[in-house]
């Protein structure tokens, strides 16, 4: 069966969430939003999914891949503007084709998480955080083996490092390869994405900490979204660029030197430039001559 996924384009209420890429690729519980939706649609029978991206189609394609990991076929289509569900249906769903998922999963706009249509993601930072907290118990799907429920309401990545004297208060999520230092307090309602680092005696409560984000020792992140050096208070929408990296900063490398994407996957190597390519060709030819005199 087939389905259409519409990527949300820009949402003025949450500009910081789109700072590093399209909203469809924003990391949520260790995977991107589009990946969560594809997993959900695959679980209910979709085998061909067309993803309509009006912003950053190449990044969406890089995030979701070809769909082989879910056993589905994915096609990413670039669009000029974000279509409505009806527009997408009119444009991409032939009238006589009955091999589609039943509504409302036939055409989905990723403005909420699977199974939570009552909790919009991008209306405000507060709605984003509320949706994530509500969805936390559903994030651990059978396909996700790198996170386990350590205690009721406390999910910890299998490669996370949590100090034995750190305090974890349910509900909280500690992503894969995240680190929680001695004496730190995480929770309640705290989400640490993959590879986030919370140093000793720091506290994170009622907050979301993005991937590769360093929370310095003895700092307190509360009622906030922290991603890199940006701190957003989801109650007031006030945002702060923290100037001192020992308080809050990004641990990811410069995008120019990056060898992995924000989910830790290896990026494609750059192609060999013309002069290097010529050199390689010449060396191969010479090696061929030497091996076949």
């Amino acid at each position, binding site marked *: 069966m087939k389905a259409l996924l519409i990527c949300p384009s820009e949402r003025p209420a949450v500009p910081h969430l789109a700072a590093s890429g399209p909203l469809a690729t924003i990391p949520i519980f260790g995977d991107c939003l589009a990946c969560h939706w594809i997993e959900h649609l695959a679980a209910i029978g979709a085998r061909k999914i067309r993803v309509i991206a009006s912003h950053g189609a190449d990044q969406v394609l890089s995030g979701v891949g070809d769909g082989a990991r879910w056993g589905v076929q994915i096609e990413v289509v670039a669009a000029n503007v974000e279509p409505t569900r009806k527009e997408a249906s009119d444009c991409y769903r032939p009238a006589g084709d009955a091999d589609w998922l039943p509504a409302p999963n036939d055409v989905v706009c990723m403005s909420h998480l699977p199974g939570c249509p009552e909790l919009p993601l991008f209306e405000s930072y507060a709605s984003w955080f509320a949706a994530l907290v509500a969805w936390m118990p559903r994030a651990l799907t059978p396909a996700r083996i790198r996170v386990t429920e350590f205690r009721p309401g406390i999910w910890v990545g299998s490669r996370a490092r949590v100090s034995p004297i750190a305090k974890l208060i349910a509900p909280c999520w500690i992503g894969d390869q995240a680190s929680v230092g001695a004496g730190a307090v995480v929770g309640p309602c705290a989400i640490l994405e993959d590879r986030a680092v919370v140093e000793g005696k720091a506290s994170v409560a009622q907050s979301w900490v993005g991937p590769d984000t360093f929370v310095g020792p003895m700092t307190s992140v*509360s009622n*906030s979204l922290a991603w890199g050096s940006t*701190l957003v208070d989801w109650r*007031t929408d*006030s*945002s*702060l660029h*923290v100037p*001192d990296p020992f*308080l809050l900063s990004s641990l990811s490398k410069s995008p120019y030197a990056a060898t992995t994407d924000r989910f830790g996957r290896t990026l494609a190597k750059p192609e060999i430039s013309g002069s290097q390519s010529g050199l390689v060709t010449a060396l191969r030819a010479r090696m061929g001559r030497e091996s076949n005199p």
Partner: protein
Amino acid sequence: MKIEILGPCLSVSEIQELTAVNSARFRDEVNAALTGSTMLIEVNLSKTRFMDSSGLGALFALYRATAQRDGVTLRLLSPMPEIQQLLELTQMQQLFEIVRR
């Protein structure tokens, strides 16, 4: 930066930013203005748009200087939301009496 002495109150205002550039001057000038009769120090942060760890250090130095004087109160007035966030991140809001006007 403007420093006024209004009886027992020492008022510091019009601070555009408090960073490594001006934190030493802030500390020196406020300490110089402190007198034996100062009972209240008000640091008005309503116009402060940027602060870094040096600025926080200057406020903490003022907090320590105040703590050594019996009966002297230190208040931060109307910090902008970004500065309030920084104070909360560093847990320094627990040290100061923060008043909104």
